[in-house]
């Protein structure tokens, strides 16, 4: 835990440096308007750096949450992580229904090692349920994709 927390402290220190550098371009004080838009961010960048040093000095004890083993060795964790990132990246191109279905199928089949039939059934049920609840019942406009356009043509979905 100590080494890990120190790593977070170093990351925070880098974040503070970058934030402070970007904030230094903003005006801190204006003779007409008083405190400028850069004042608070610059103070915060300095305070973040101090707190980061504090964390590195006193990182705390205890075990890592989720266990000491590296999550990258867990196939299930990798499948969920890939699905999460995959959906976020593919959403503008494929829409929600196709990406959501593919992500669920990937997670169940390869991450959870479930049979193909069960994976397919749950993927279809889940995507249909979320689409009906959010899209049809609550009227949330969906990100555009081929499947969304088809369903929208029946008046069951609005496109965003």
């Amino acid at each position, binding site marked *: 835990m100590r080494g890990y927390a120190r790593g977070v402290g170093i990351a925070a220190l880098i974040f503070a440096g970058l934030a402070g550098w970007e904030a230094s371009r903003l005006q801190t004080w204006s003779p007409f308007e008083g405190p400028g838009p*850069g004042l608070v961010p610059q103070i915060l960048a300095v305070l973040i750096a101090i707190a980061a040093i*504090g964390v590195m000095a*006193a990182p705390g004890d205890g075990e890592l949450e989720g266990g000491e083993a590296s999550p990258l060795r867990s196939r299930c964790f990798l499948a969920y992580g890939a699905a999460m990132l995959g959906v976020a990246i593919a959403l503008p191109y494929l829409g929600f229904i196709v990406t959501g279905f593919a992500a669920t199928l990937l997670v169940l089949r390869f991450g959870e090692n479930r049979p193909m039939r069960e994976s397919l059934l749950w993927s279809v049920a889940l995507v249909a349920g979320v689409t009906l609840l959010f899209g049809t019942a609550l009227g949330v406009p969906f990100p555009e994709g081929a499947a969304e356009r088809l369903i929208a043509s029946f008046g069951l979905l609005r496109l965003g």
Partner: protein
Amino acid sequence: MMDGLLQGFGVLMTFQNLSLCLIGAVLGTLVGVLPGLGPATTIALLLPISLKLDPTGAIILLAGIYYGVAYGGTITSVLMRIPGEASSVVTCIDGYAMARKGRAGAALGIAAIGSFIAGTFGVLGVMLLSPPLAELVIAFGPWEYAALMLAGLSLIAFFAASGVAKAALMALVGLFLGSVGLDPITGTSRFTFGIPALVDGVNIAPLALGLFGLSELLFLALSGDKKPEILRPPSTLLGFMPNRTEWKRSAMPIARGSVLGFFVGLLPGGGAVLASFLSYAVEKRLTKYPEEFGKGAIEGVAGPESANNSGTAGAFIPLLTLGIPSNAVTALLLGALLVHGVQPGPMILERQPELYWGVIASMYLGNFILLVLNLPFVGFFVRALEVPRRFMATAILLVCVIGTWSTGLNHFDVLLAAAFGIVGFLLRRGGFDLGPLVLAYVLGPTLERSLRQALLISDGDLTQVVHHPIALGFLIVSAAVLLSGLVFRKRPAVVQDGGS
């Protein structure tokens, strides 16, 4: 006041609001039962849905979840020795021991009844204390507001289980995130890097859904799909009734827990978790049967369970009258109100009495619903634990994605949510509380505005604060709290509210 309450019940007695109160209470209980899924995660998941409702309906639904969680967490604590929620951790000790002795029904029964009494006491306290507090706060200027928020953030850092340095770092990062977007005073663009979606700042939906929802998903992926051992609850209502001796021994712990929990709930960083721990410590000290503590003492269930419910109610006072959340969950409630264009604070009673009194009325009804739900449907709630992890986790993923998209209708927010999910996972793994980050993010814009107004009035002279005794008092409290937190690092740790 009675007129206000009647108005509140008038607002509540619509089909929509009654349904939302019931849905919130049931969902809250379910969430409380499921280990891992805390109230913050659930409120984050439901935030996009609540945006489809009017502000009163939204806060009735989300508040229902918040106080429902405190009830639901008890069930798994007593029957499985697994706290469904952080505020029920302490109930595991004596609640589970009672269940092993065949008194599971009495433990669940006294917890439900104590929770009802304490919850009702807490709502009464909110009703009685909020108006005079709001009157007092109306006189606050920018110095006082800025200092009050700093004091609140300091207290949150002090109470955080992760220690002052880690909590302070999280709070500062949260404040920084709150400064992204157009500067509210000059209109200058800050940290937007030419991305149009960032002009309005980092939205609360990707932040909350990423930090709480998606990071939880990653932790679920890491945990095994184990079948928990569950002790069976009684099958009849009579089985939940404590015997005469148990009633007698529980009366004072319930009374003490109600009062203590309510006042602890008022503190920033306080809330249900701290209330339950303190109540347990008090009961252990005052009991006539110290040898039974840890082995099934009913006081160890009655006191903390009452305290966590009145603490939940108490946390609504700073939220509604000061506009200052006291933990991650109330920060998300504040975020939901702000998205609806409602600014909680001392003027809420005058400007939006229907919202204020509607929420109070819903809390009365919610407490009653929870009492009715808790005992007969324990078996049903326990069954929720049998839902395989894979179904829950994939549902969280898709709800997070569409929820994030629906609030801003842009792809960047979804990417941001995924990034916050990874950051949240890494931070939680290292023992960092995410509560202070979200809280500071929500408070950030108001804190900055107050501070800059104060500096503008005083022409940049910080020493002018000495002419504002209330503000000075708050600053002294902040400094004292932070210093004592750094000096006395070995104090007993308290888990931060919010399921984080």
